[in-house]
């Protein structure tokens, strides 16, 4: 009953999406407000019905209704409640339902909070959302229906893949999808602008908050996925340049470029055509990611060829939306007027440079991910493109980009003074040089590149601080005045500083982890001691334990340093009987931002156990950086200038000249 209701709700949502995708456009042509307002009600109703459908699937999973194929294949009655819920999106059908639910959520949000949008723009935006939604409802209903019943219901389910039974994965996919699908709003705005043939600074102001929301979630989603891989996959890697990861990195890079170019458009009415293109590309890359992951084309070109229904369907959606929007772009973009001029050395110029490097980086990931596929399809040759390729091509792009980051916010709009900015960045430069010298001396001339990279990271962080110091004239005026100015700074200025500093912080973590990671590999018996990076790790004993749906072998280690006991670590190996598979549960011990990491291997015949211990210096910064970036994004989002319709801030009588600068 619940399954049928969920199925039916989804069909109704499709019907609503079809109405939403046509009637408002007709309304806009006829300038009929009533017809245009249909978009709003259908978007909200769509959200309601997809929501019901999603709740229905969750209910089926929670109540372990094994007469539904999706529940039977991915659940087990003994599974903890949390994983019964998260198991809903731990499989293809369920995750697609989550995808459309989030799409409907964003559409609903535009409908509910878009009251200050011009009526025809809102109608067009929601109509485009309707097209996307309709395409994906069709995809789910035709090829990936999660509500299918089994004729003879089995008593027990097949259980969820044990690797996925983890709290990190409870949150990771929804986060990632909020990012992916959030970019659909920027896309819809771009297409709506092309249809209307009108675009101005106000457009950028409407689009930016949505882009920012999507970007924040995508940033956190990618970081969380990376941390999950780090502790769950058991070999301490945190980024593998896997096509599945690249699929999420591409929209992130394009989205980051979009955020920056939208700033130029909002402040200076320039880069309009380019911003529109980026908005289209960003969501196209999200769709591409969906295609790559959902079609099975990554696993093997041949697997794709043998069961192509889903793949071909998504490929069609992909061609339709990307091809359609790009055609529209080529047709209409020339009608859009170019805006304000600027000199190459200016805030706009710096943001253009940012866009050049970010889009090139994005293209590099794109070609690295798709080249092996394309080559195999065209010639049958198989090649591999992995981490060493990306380290060589993608990595170097970030050196000039990061060098330029501190300059951007300090340059004036229209025409900047590079020498003046360089002078103001002197302190940051000195901090970077000191950092390089210190790291180099401390590691006694080991790797040459690592201290330089750390210096670059310090330059970025110090540059963000300098920006704030300059804007508040901290060292040039009384402290109280500076504090008052700090409070008066736009939130987006603080957001920029935090986000840029976050990039530097992440870079420090990445450099330290890859350069000074140390490891111990060996077979240990109880009472053996492993020594690593100044720590002694004694294996106390090995025990067995029964979990809810698995058996577990635990090893207990006592960690001490210079004879003082610090903590106890218990890595384990779990075997899941239903699927006959096992997972390694690594034990992690944080010491400041550094971590000790133990994962277990096989037991030997003589009672010893294979053990792998890592010491990863400052590894936590890799994920703390993105958290800072997301926090910066959140600060920007709370800026009243971005909250469309918020009243203008009251003018302060004595305006500090620098704080007046529009700050990004």
């Amino acid at each position, binding site marked *: 009953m619940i399954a049928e209701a969920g199925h039916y709700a989804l069909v109704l949502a499709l019907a609503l999406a079809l109405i939403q995708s046509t009637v408002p456009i007709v309304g806009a042509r006829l300038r009929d407000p009533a017809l245009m307002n249909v978009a709003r009600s259908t978007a909200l109703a769509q959200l309601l019905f997809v929501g019901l459908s999603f709740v229905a699937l969750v209910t089926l999973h929670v109540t372990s209704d094994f007469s539904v194929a999706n529940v039977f294949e991915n659940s087990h009655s003994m599974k903890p409640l949390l994983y019964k819920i998260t198991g809903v*999106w*731990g499989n293809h059908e369920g995750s697609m339902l989550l995808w459309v639910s989030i799409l409907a959520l964003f559409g609903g949000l535009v409908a509910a909070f878009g009251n200050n949008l011009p009526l025809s723009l809102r109608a067009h935006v929601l109509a485009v959302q309707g097209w996307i939604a309709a395409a994906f409802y069709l995809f789910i209903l035709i090829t990936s229906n999660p509500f299918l019943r089994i004729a003879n219901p089995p008593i027990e389910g097949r259980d969820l*893949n044990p*690797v*996925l039974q983890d709290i990190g*994965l409870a949150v990771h996919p929804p986060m990632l*999808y909020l990012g992916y699908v959030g970019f659909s709003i920027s896309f819809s705005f771009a297409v709506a602008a092309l249809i209307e043939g009108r675009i101005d600074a106000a457009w950028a102001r409407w689009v930016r908050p949505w882009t920012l929301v999507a970007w924040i979630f995508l940033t956190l989603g990618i970081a969380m*996925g990376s941390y*999950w*891989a780090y502790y769950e*996959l*058991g*070999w301490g*890697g945190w980024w*593998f*340049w*896997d*096509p*599945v*990861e690249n699929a*999420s990195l591409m929209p992130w890079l394009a989205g980051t470029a979009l955020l920056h170019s939208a700033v130029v458009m909002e402040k200076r009415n320039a880069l309009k055509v380019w911003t529109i293109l980026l908005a289209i590309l960003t969501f196209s890359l999200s769709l591409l*990611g969906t295609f790559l*992951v959902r079609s099975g084309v*990554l*696993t093997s070109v041949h697997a794709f060829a043998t069961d192509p229904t889903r793949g071909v369907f998504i490929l069609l959606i992909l061609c339709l939306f990307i091809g359609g929007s790009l055609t529209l772009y080529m047709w209409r973009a020339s009608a859009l007027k*170019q*805006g*304000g*001029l600027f000199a*190459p050395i200016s805030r706009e110029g710096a943001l*253009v440079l940012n866009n*050049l*490097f970010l*889009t090139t980086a994005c*293209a*590099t990931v794109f*070609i690295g991910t798709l*080249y092996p596929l394309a080559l195999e399809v065209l*010639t049958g040759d*198989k*090649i*591999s*493109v*992995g*981490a*060493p390729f990306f380290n*060589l091509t993608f990595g170097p*792009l970030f050196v000039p980009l990061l060098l330029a980051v501190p300059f951007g916010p300090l340059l004036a709009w229209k025409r900047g003074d590079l020498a003046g900015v360089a002078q103001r960045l002197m302190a940051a430069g000195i901090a970077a040089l000191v950092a390089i010298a210190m790291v180099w001396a401390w590691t006694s001339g080991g790797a040459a590149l690592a201290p330089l990279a750390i210096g670059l990271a310090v330059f970025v962080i110090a540059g963000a601080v300098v920006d704030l110091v300059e804007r508040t004239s901290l060292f040039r005026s009384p402290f109280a005045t500076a504090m008052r100015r700090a409070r008066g700074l736009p939130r987006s200025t603080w957001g920029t500083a935090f986000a840029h500093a976050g990039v530097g912080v992440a870079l420090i973590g990445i450099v330290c982890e890859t350069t000074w990671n140390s490891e111990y*590999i*060996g*077979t240990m018996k109880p009472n053996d001691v492993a020594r690593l990076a100044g720590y002694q790790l004694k294996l106390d004993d090995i025990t067995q334990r029964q979990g809810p749906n698995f058996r577990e072998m635990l090893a207990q280690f006592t960690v001490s340093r210079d004879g003082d006991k610090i903590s106890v670590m218990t890595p384990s*190996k779990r075997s899941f009987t239903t699927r006959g*598979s*096992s*997972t*390694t549960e690594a034990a992690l011990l944080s010491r400041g931002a550094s971590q000790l990491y133990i*994962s277990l*291997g*096989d037991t030997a015949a003589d009672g010893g156990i294979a053990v*792998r211990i890592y010491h990863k210096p400052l590894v936590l910064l890799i994920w703390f950086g993105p958290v800072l970036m997301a926090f910066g994004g959140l600060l920007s989002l709370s800026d009243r200038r971005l909250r469309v319709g918020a009243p203008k801030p009251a003018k302060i009588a004595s305006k500090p000249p620098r704080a007046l600068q529009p700050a990004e």
Partner: protein
Amino acid sequence: MKRIFASLVVFALILGASAAYAVQPDEVMADPAKELRARDLSRELRCMVCQNQSIDDSEAPLARDLRLLVRERITAGDSDSQVMDFLVARYGEFVLLKPRLELRTLLLWLLTPLLLIGGGFALWRHNRRRAVGETSDDGTPLTLTAEEEARLERLLASEGGAEKP
């Protein structure tokens, strides 16, 4: 979600077979310098039955065989490039995680520098073209005519002159 399906595939291949993991204690070479070389090479080699994993990361039995093979070649006195050549001769270029620069991988390697140079050039040209004879939103020319330039010169000169005394 993206990760899930990668791991589904990888783990179906690996955990189903055996629950070993990357570099085993019994594989480690006695000479730390040689072991370091072996590890560096391992990171450049693909475990061919896995999805985009190096043999250094992979737990698959094939990856173990390859790791042992790399160490065997190093023990036999091969240089790094000889080890790579040996593996390519045996398993094809599919085994290299960093494809060699040749005709069929030309676009792969050259796209990044080409885009950067091309993009930079396009920006430079765009900037020059726009500086000459484009109009802003309201239709006024964005550059000055020769007459206006001359007038500006005169104004600036007179202002400069006024300040001097």
